[in-house]
């Protein structure tokens, strides 16, 4: 008798699973600590997507489970991913702000039969580590290559490159160098600064002494950016007519109120500006602003997360809720849609996002706030970094 009941129960549960199920998505990101703002943006993007598109795909309920990795920590990231897969039974992994964290998880994917949708980590190589990785953010190669052309077109032929000494910084340096030298420019000097630099005056002096007409800079967004831009102005480099070029990390929207007038006129290239003028973005900013609480905190990771959710939803649709990682990834290869940042598609070969890169300039709005004003569009940019890897 007892055995029959158990068998009946088991049959019921299995039968239930095929019809309406709860599909779990595990999101790993920095939700506390110094990078909490970026994690908050992940959550805002995801919440916005679910608010606009519902929390159901077909008959299946979608549940997002968050795990916190406050600082780059590959070991912890891997452990949490394992926990999500084994204990929580997630069918999809997503998130990841830092490259090392994402890299640590790629070896698990095949055995776990779980696709990984990267919502931020921006080093080119990640997508090559496993065929189950899809990325909806950007790479530094992708955002830094167009600015080289901008610099050359602005009549600058000698540039000094100054980057923070870590993976993405080195990527940015190489991307700019490749692009700028191809355009016929010359890099007079390449400086790599320690990540923990507080006082940038000596660096500014060096830029001045190098005789360059322009500077290409990359630092991770946050407190150091402010110090760098202020030092650039205060040491008289702006007045000396030295031009400032950078990828958009330096002028992310949530840092702009603090940068203020110091940032005016800085030109950056990036894949997303909160001010982007399109109906899709208007809807997105409204929903994400509501989700994050304070719209001034909205920044680029939110759009990576929003599009990441779009990709996951399409994967669930294609697999009908069954766990089949390869089928899910195959289904989104070549997928094209209109994102809040503009038209985008998933490159079938690299599984990285192809998107427009915009040249923007920090501008003061009529109400006294600052925003990144889009000037030029570089259409359908792939990731040049993958070509450089080969």
């Amino acid at each position, binding site marked *: 008798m007892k055995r029959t009941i158990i068998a009946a129960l088991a049959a019921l549960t299995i039968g239930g699973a095929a019809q309406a199920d709860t599909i779990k998505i595990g999101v790993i990101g920095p939700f506390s*600590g*110094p990078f*909490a*703002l970026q994690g*908050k943006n992940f959550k805002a993007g995801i919440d916005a997507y679910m608010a606009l598109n519902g929390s159901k795909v077909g008959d299946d309920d979608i549940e997002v489970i968050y795990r916190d990795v406050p600082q780059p920590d590959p070991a912890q990231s891997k452990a949490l991913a394992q926990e999500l897969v084994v204990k929580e039974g997630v069918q999809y992994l997503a998130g990841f702000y830092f490259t090392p964290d994402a890299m640590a998880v790629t070896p698990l994917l095949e055995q776990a039969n779980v696709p990984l949708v990267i919502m931020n980590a921006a080093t080119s190589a990640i997508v090559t580590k496993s065929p189950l990785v899809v990325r909806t953010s950007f790479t530094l190669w992708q955002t830094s290559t167009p600015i080289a052309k901008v610099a050359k077109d602005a009549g600058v032929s000698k540039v000094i490159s100054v980057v923070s*000494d870590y993976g993405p910084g080195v990527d940015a340096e190489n991307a700019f160098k490749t692009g700028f030298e191809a355009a016929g420019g010359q890099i007079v000097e390449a*400086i*790599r*600064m*320690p990540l*923990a*630099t*507080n*006082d940038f*005056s*000596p*660096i500014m*002096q*060096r830029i*001045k*002494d190098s005789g360059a007409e322009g500077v290409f800079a990359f630092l991770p967004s*946050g*407190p150091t950016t*402010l*110090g760098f831009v*202020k030092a650039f102005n*205060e*040491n*008289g480099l702006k007045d000396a007519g030295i031009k400032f070029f950078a990828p958009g990390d330096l002028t992310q929207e*949530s*840092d702009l*109120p*603090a940068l*203020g007038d110091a940032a005016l006129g800085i030109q950056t290239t990036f894949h997303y500006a909160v001010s982007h003028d399109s109906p899709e973005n208007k809807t997105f900013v409204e929903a994400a602003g509501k989700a994050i609480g*304070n719209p*001034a*905190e909205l920044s680029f990771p939110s759009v990576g997360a929003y599009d990441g959710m779009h990709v996951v939803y399409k994967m669930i649709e294609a697999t009908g809720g069954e766990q089949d990682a390869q089928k899910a990834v195959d289904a989104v290869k070549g997928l094209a849609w209109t994102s809040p940042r503009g038209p985008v598609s998933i490159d079938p070969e690299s599984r990285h996002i192809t998107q427009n890169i915009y040249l923007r300039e920090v501008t003061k709005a009529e109400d006294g706030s600052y925003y990144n004003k889009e000037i030029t569009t570089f259409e359908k940019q792939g990731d040049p970094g993958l070509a450089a890897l080969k």
Partner: protein
Amino acid sequence: MQTVFSIAVDALAYGMVLFVISIGLSVTMGLMRVVNLAHGAFAMIGGYIASYAARDLGLGYGLAVLLAVFGTIVIAVPIERLLYRRIYGAPELTQVLMTIGITFCIIGIANYAFGPTLKTIPLPPGLEGSVDLGFRSIATHRIFAILCGLSVAAALWYLIERTGFGVKLRAAVDDAAMAAALGVRTEIVYAVSFAVAVGLAALGGVVGAELLPVEPYYALRYMVTFLVVVSVGGAGSISGALIACLLLGGIDTAGRYLVPEFGEFFFYLAVIAIVCVFPRGLAGRIR
């Protein structure tokens, strides 16, 4: 030659900012014998108050600085009475655990109340822009920071070495029981010196905000640098801290100008060398 001058000017400015923030920690660690890891948190509170007063309430810079210093003291005095009083003379581990706990609480509260974004303290027109020194230009607020550092050093030296309060403080530090027996109200002496140390932290947080921007993780981000200054200078010594700041500022600045690829190698190499030769710091008091 111009390079040498240029580095010297930057080193002086950076060293002085370090000095203003770290000297309060030197006072708590050297004179009150408390390993106060919450020092950075108090500097951060000062920064937040000044930012709120100057940016959101539109008060003047001078008023914002005063509000920051006294506001931080008002917040810190109850903490001293309720918590710090219990750890005077306790083993270092107890002190470290409690003060780091306070730091995390303050980070959490700051993050909740003010959000995770950077906060700036708008400078008055007189401190904005830069001054031409002939061979290069330097930001005006750095000259202000240098002057602040020098006046803080002079005022502290006078307070500790030349006033009746300084005598009582030094007596209470050397032998609290004996000082109390002689009629010194040691708990008041401690409370006042704690308030002074916290006020200095707040002042440093405000004056240094252009170099070390105010955000919730400020409290931990720069704590290592402050501790290094105190251990190299010798806890409790004003001249020691001053020399340490100028020396470390100089090494750090020169290293960053000449060989940025080495990162903070020379900074920490110098720290290791100095601490090996002078285990109690450049001017450490012998206990």
